[in-house]
C-alpha cells in the first residue's frame, strides 16, 4: 500500500495523540507567575534575598506536586536590583513580554508603591508577600493588589502599645513620663512605621522627644547619635535596613548612647544572625516587631497540616543555606504568604471563578475567611474588598520578639508571649542606661 506524505503525517500525529499519557492535555494549562525581589543591591542582603528564598521554597513545592487544580506552575524570577525604577521595568516586562498571569513578591515599599499603581493600570493581579508601608494600599482603591502582611502603621503602633503596657511595671514611670525617640530610614517603609510610632505614642500618652529620618545610605550617623544623647530617650524606636542599622548601633556604642530599650521594626532587625555577627552579644535584649517567625509560632494553634508545612519549609531552608544559626523570620514570612496564595486564592479562583485572570483571582482573594491560626504566621486572613485599605489583610498582626543569646523569644502581645520581656536593658549591656 502506498501512503502519501500527507497520510503518513496524519498517521504519525494520531500515534502521538494515542501514546500521550492520560491527563497530559490538562497539564498544558500553565499558570505563569512573575516573582520580583531584590537579588542584588543593598536590599538583597538586608532581607530581600531571604524573602525570595521563602517564596521559592513554596513555589518549588507546588511545582513538584504537579501544579494546582490542573494548572502547571511556571515561575519567572526577576531582580529588582534594590531600585524602584528597575522593579517597575521588570514588572512591566514580566507582564507584557513574559505574559505572566500575576506578580508575587516585592521587599521594598519604595518599589511596591509605584509598581502597584502600574500593575493596576495593566489590570493584572499582584500578591505582595513583604513590603509593609500603609501607603502601598491606603486610599488608592486598588482592586487587584493584595497584601497578607500587617501594615507598617500596625508595626509602629505595636511597639508603642508594648512600651506603654510595661512602662510603669518595668521602668517605674507612667507612660506620660516615658521618653521615646523615633528614628527611621526616610523611604516609604520607614516613614510609614514612624507615623504608626507617632500615632501610637500619642494614643498611649508617651512623650516623643525626638523624631528623625535619615537616608539608609548615609555614610555617617554620628550627628543622629549626638541628638539622641541630647534628647535622653528611655526607648528608641528604630526602623531601618541592614547596613544603616549596624552603622547606627556601632556609632551609638562608640558615641556613648544609652537607653532602657531599643525596638526595631522588621527589615534589618529581622535578621538577628547578621546583627549578632556584627555586634556580638550586645544585641541581646533588643526587640523586633515583625510577623511571628513561623518556627516560633504556637504550632498547636495552627490549622491542620500547617505544622508539617512549617517543618518542611525549615528543612528546605537548611538545605538551601546550610549552617544558618537562627532561622530568619523573613524566610517563613514570604513562605507563609506565598503558601496562602497557592492554597486559598489560586484553587478557589480556578474552581469557583473559572480561571486565573485578575478578576477571578480578586474574587477568590476577597472570599478568603481564615480565623486566627489559619496561616503559618499565626494570624488569620480576611481581605478588605474596599475602603481606605482595600487589599489589606485585616486579620494580620505583628508580634514583638526579644533577642536572646542564641535566638529570639516572643514577648508581645501577651496572648502570643512565651514569657515577659527583659526590661530595662540589663546593666551589663554596653547600651544600658547607667
Amino acid at each position, binding site marked *: 500500500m502506498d501512503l502519501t506524505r500527507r497520510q503518513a503525517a496524519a498517521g504519525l500525529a494520531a500515534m502521538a495523540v494515542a501514546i500521550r499519557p492520560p491527563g497530559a492535555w490538562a497539564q498544558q494549562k500553565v499558570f505563569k507567575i512573575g516573582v520580583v525581589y531584590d537579588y542584588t543591591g543593598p536590599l538583597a*542582603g538586608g532581607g530581600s534575598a531571604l524573602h525570595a528564598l521563602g517564596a521559592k521554597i513554596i513555589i518549588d513545592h507546588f511545582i513538584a506536586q504537579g501544579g494546582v487544580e490542573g494548572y502547571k506552575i511556571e515561575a519567572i524570577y526577576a531582580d529588582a536590583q534594590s531600585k524602584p525604577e528597575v522593579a517597575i521595568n521588570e514588572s512591566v516586562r514580566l507582564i507584557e513580554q513574559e505574559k505572566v498571569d500575576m506578580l508575587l513578591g516585592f521587599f521594598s515599599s519604595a518599589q511596591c508603591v509605584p509598581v502597584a499603581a502600574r500593575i493596576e493600570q495593566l489590570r493584572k493581579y499582584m500578591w505582595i508577600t513583604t513590603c509593609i508601608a500603609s501607603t502601598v494600599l491606603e486610599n488608592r482603591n486598588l482592586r487587584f493588589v493584595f497584601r497578607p502582611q500587617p501594615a507598617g502603621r500596625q508595626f509602629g503602633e505595636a511597639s508603642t502599645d508594648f512600651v506603654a503596657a510595661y512602662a510603669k511595671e518595668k521602668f517605674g514611670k507612667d507612660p506620660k513620663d516615658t521618653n521615646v525617640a523615633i528614628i527611621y530610614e526616610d523611604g516609604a517603609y520607614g516613614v510609614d512605621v514612624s507615623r504608626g510610632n507617632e500615632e501610637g505614642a500619642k494614643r498611649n500618652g508617651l512623650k516623643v522627644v525626638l523624631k528623625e529620618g535619615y537616608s539608609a545610605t*548615609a555614610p555617617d*550617623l554620628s550627628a543622629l547619635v549626638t*541628638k539622641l544623647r541630647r534628647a535622653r530617650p528611655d526607648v528608641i524606636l528604630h526602623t531601618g535596613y541592614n547596613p544603616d542599622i549596624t552603622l547606627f548601633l556601632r556609632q551609638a*556604642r562608640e558615641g*556613648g548612647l544609652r537607653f532602657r530599650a531599643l525596638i526595631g521594626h522588621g527589615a534589618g532587625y529581622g535578621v538577628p544572625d547578621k546583627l549578632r*555577627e*556584627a555586634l556580638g552579644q550586645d544585641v541581646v535584649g533588643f526587640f523586633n516587631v515583625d510577623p511571628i517567625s513561623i518556627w516560633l509560632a504556637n504550632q498547636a494553634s495552627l490549622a491542620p497540616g500547617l505544622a508539617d508545612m512549617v517543618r518542611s519549609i525549615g528543612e528546605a531552608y537548611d538545605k538551601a543555606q546550610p549552617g544558618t544559626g537562627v532561622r530568619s523570620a523573613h524566610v517563613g514570612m514570604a513562605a507563609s504568604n506565598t503558601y496562602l496564595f497557592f492554597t486559598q486564592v489560586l484553587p478557589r479562583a480556578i474552581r469557583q471563578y473559572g480561571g486565573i485572570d485578575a478578576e477571578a483571582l480578586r474574587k477568590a482573594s476577597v472570599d478568603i475567611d481564615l480565623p486566627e491560626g489559619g496561616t503559618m504566621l499565626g494570624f488569620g486572613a480576611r481581605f478588605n474588598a474596599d475602603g481606605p485599605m482595600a487589599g489589606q489583610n485585616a486579620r494580620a498582626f505583628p508580634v514583638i520578639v526579644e533577642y536572646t543569646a542564641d535566638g529570639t523569644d516572643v514577648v508581645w502581645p501577651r496572648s502570643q508571649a512565651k514569657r515577659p520581656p527583659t526590661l530595662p536593658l540589663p546593666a551589663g549591656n554596653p547600651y544600658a542606661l547607667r
Partner: protein
Amino acid sequence: MGIFDIFLLEAVVNGLLLGGVLALLALGLNLIFGVIDVVWICYAELVMIGMYAIYYFASAYGWPLWLAVPAAIAVVAVLGVLLHVLVISPLLGAEPINQLLATGGVLFFLQSFATVAFGIEFRNLGLRLPVIEVGDIFISYARLLAFGCALAGMLAVWLFLSRTYTGTAIRAISQDRQIMALMGVDTRRIYLITSAVGGGLAGLAACLLVLQYDVHPFVGLSFGPIIFMICVMGGLGNMLGGFIAAFIFAELISVGGLFLDLEWGYVFAFVFFIAMMFVRPEGLLARRS
C-alpha cells in the same frame, strides 16, 4: 539647649573625625587625577574590593591584622596598576568623557563582580573597638584611627612627592606630561607607580572603613559621590584642596545635622558645593586654571 553646649562640641569633633575619613578617601583619587589626568569614577569600588580583601584575609583565612592590612593594601595597589594597564592606558589620548565612561564601566563591573564572587551578604570583621570618653564627649576609636591615618597618609604622600626622585618626576609629569617624555622620563613607569600608590591609598582607606562599616558589593555608593564632590570642590588633582574640602564638607554634615534634621546637613553640604562651583569653579585651591 544653648547654642554652645557640649553636644555642639561633640558634633564638631565628630565632623573633624568624619573629615579625616573623607580626606583619606579623597587623597588617592586626587593623586591619580593630578598626575594621570584621569578621574577614577570607580575609586570607591576599589575601596570596596579592599574591604573584602581584609575581610577574607582576617576573618575567613584567620590572618592576624598586622599581616592582613598590608596584604589588603597590596591587593588594591595591584588592582590600581591593572586598572591603569587594562583600561586607562589605552585611553590616555582619548577624550575625557571616554575615559570617564570607561572608569564608570569599571564601577559597574566591580559591583557585579563582587556580587557574583562574594555574594550579597553583609560581612564584617566583628571587631568591637574600645570607646574613648573625654569628659562628656565620646570619640570613635575607628574614626580617630582614620583621622590619624589621613594625616599620616597626607604627610607620607607629601614627603614622597617632595623628597624622592620618583616623587619629583611625578610632580613634573603632573605639570606637563608631554614635555617630560621628551626629557627622558619614563612616563609609563611613573603612571604605574602613581596608580599603585593611588590604589594603595584606597586599600588603606578600606582597612579603616572596614572597622566601622559592613562590606557589601554596593558599599561604595555611600561614599563615591561624596568623594567625587570633595575632590571637585578642592580642585581636582589638588591634594591639599581636597583635604580642606573634606573637613568643610564633614563639618557641614555634622553640625548642620545637629541643629536641623539630619538630611539638612547633607543639603547644606550640597548647596555649599553648588555655590562654590559658581564662586570658585576651579576649586578651593585650584591647581590650574
